[in-house]
């Protein structure tokens, strides 16, 4: 906490004892901090903390659209846990999150390593790779919807022309096909973020480490395993936490591509809570579904926290 000392107020030496209450409000460090924090805190309390608490409360009530509802205890939770649709949504969400995150991580890391090589037009290639991340998800999902069309899909057409398949692929009409199709679209959208942030991490690794290891006879794999990977772990932890978090709570892609179908095969917890609460009007039940996501999110945050801790430990005392 050496920075607290460095930041000690120069004005402390000239502090005048008879500050009026008004002057204290304007100059006292803590009051000043409070005034400066006020706009941000106001937004976050009104539109984030309060709704978060309200959501928990609503999940214990039988609120409907237009009626406040009354306390019903754990009824909503008991109902959704026994509901096979909810069980399906939990399975789909976990499957979707796990598979998409693993693939995103593998492809993202691979892409980052490729981009870390020395090559011409590097800046241009990096700029192009980020485009899927810039374009609004819904708009690129619409493009995927068209690519996945049952009769006019360009992918089916190309594969058919090459003679690999005889009939069109029913991308979004079959349970497993649609799961893999939405996972592919999610991976497509998520890889640029992971690749570019990991690339930023890779660029901080000094090339001399690899040179030294290679002189000692290390192979490429050993270089990666014992230099790149350990040095990258903290960034990987943070990036993957974000990735898992946003994949787990994904809504847009599913809403556009399948709307949970066919027959609930791609229903995620987020889309199910929307359908229940907003379209179905059963606010309490929907709130219970979305509150059920919280334990999983806490798990992800814990992973992030331990990742950060390790970084502090790795970089020694200097963690500013």
């Amino acid at each position, binding site marked *: 906490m050496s920075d607290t000392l460095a930041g000690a107020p120069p004005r402390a030496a000239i502090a005048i004892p008879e500050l009026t209450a008004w002057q204290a409000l304007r100059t006292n460090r*803590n009051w000043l901090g409070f005034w400066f924090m006020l*706009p941000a805190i106001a*937004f976050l309390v009104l539109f984030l903390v309060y709704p*978060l608490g309200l959501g928990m409360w609503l999940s214990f009530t039988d609120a409907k659209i237009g009626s406040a509802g009354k306390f019903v205890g754990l009824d909503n939770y008991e109902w959704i846990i026994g509901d096979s649709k909810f069980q399906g949504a939990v399975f789909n969400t976990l499957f979707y999150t796990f598979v998409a995150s693993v693939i995103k991580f593998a492809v993202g890391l691979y892409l980052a390593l490729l981009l870390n*090589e020395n090559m011409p037009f590097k800046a241009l*290639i990096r700029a192009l790779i980020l485009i899927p991340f*810039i374009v609004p998800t819904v708009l*690129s999902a619409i493009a995927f919807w068209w690519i996945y069309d049952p009769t006019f899909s360009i992918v089916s057409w190309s594969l058919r022309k090459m003679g690999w398949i005889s009939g069109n692929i029913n991308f979004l009409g079959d349970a497993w096909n649609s799961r893999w199709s939405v996972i592919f679209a999610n991976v497509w959208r998520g890889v640029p973020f992971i690749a570019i942030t990991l690339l930023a991490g890779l660029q901080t690794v000094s090339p001399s480490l690899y040179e030294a290891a290679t002189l000692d006879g290390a192979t490429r794999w050993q270089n990666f395993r014992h230099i790149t990977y350990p040095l990258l772990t903290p960034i990987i932890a943070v990036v993957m936490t974000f990735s898992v978090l946003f994949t787990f709570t994904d809504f*847009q892609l599913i809403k556009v591509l399948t709307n949970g179908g066919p027959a609930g095969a791609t229903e995620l917890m987020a889309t199910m809570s929307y359908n229940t609460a907003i379209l179905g009007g059963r606010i309490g039940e929907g709130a219970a579904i979305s509150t059920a996501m919280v334990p999983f999110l806490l798990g992800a945050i814990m992973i992030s926290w331990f990742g950060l801790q390790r970084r502090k430990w790795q970089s020694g005392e200097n963690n500013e």
Partner: protein
Amino acid sequence: MSNSPATPSAVTAKNDDSVGMTYLATLPQQIVTVYTPLLLIVFVLLFPFYWMVITALKPKEHLLDLETHNPFWTWSPTFEHINDLLFKTDYPIWLWNTMLISVAATVLSLIASVFAAYAITRIRFRGAQMVGGLIFLAYLVPPSILFIPLSTVIYQYGLFDTPFALILTYPTILIPFSTWLLMGYFKTIPYELEECALMDGASRWQIMTKIILPLAVPGLISASIFCLTLCWNEFIYALTFINTTSKKTVPVAILSAFTDGDQYRWGSLMAGALVGSLPLVILYAFFVEHYVSAMTGAVKE
């Protein structure tokens, strides 16, 4: 790619410190291990956009006829889809809504974030560290678990179906992110500058507007571009809080407007997706570096 320098020494000489040991690999080796996989990935990443553009420019009768015309290319590009979109639908209004909401939310968030980041890094009031940590936690609360209670809150506050429903809720997504980004920038500004100004009798307000903000301009640009993109991209709040078609934002409106029955109007849909993405892509093209630093900065902090 074929015009890359042939001799390894030219490579090392021409480029910066990040060369590493690339010079040990020969060009044929690099083609197999680097360029081919890279090209493949870039192709997959960009193909949907190519497909979007080509579909938006194809005449209607070519769209659903893959046999007589080569689907990958068109010799008779037409602007009829884009024309229909801009002059026969409410698309310009949606685009305007999206822009207005994004800019308003970004401005509000930036003002709040500048004050918050300054207070946390510089005023160091009691509990500043903890408040910083809490703001980071707010970053981890996803809209998908907030939108149900938030819709009742919006209703209570009387904001339902107004642009303010979005302008006031988007900052909850943007403030945590931009506060952390700006904290990183403010920390790099030497404290001595501020001490000097304080000695000379400057107020906190003067220090912030005259010293800190001018020095943090790159950070402000990064934060605002990123915020704009996030707003433009936002879907679940816009879908839940806005009912009237003429008040919707592009991502929401386009979904409901062009899907009449089973016969999707692919040309209009693709044109809508294309026109809706273009402003962001153009903005991005001008500020790539700021963008990357915003993305990586928030993660590195």
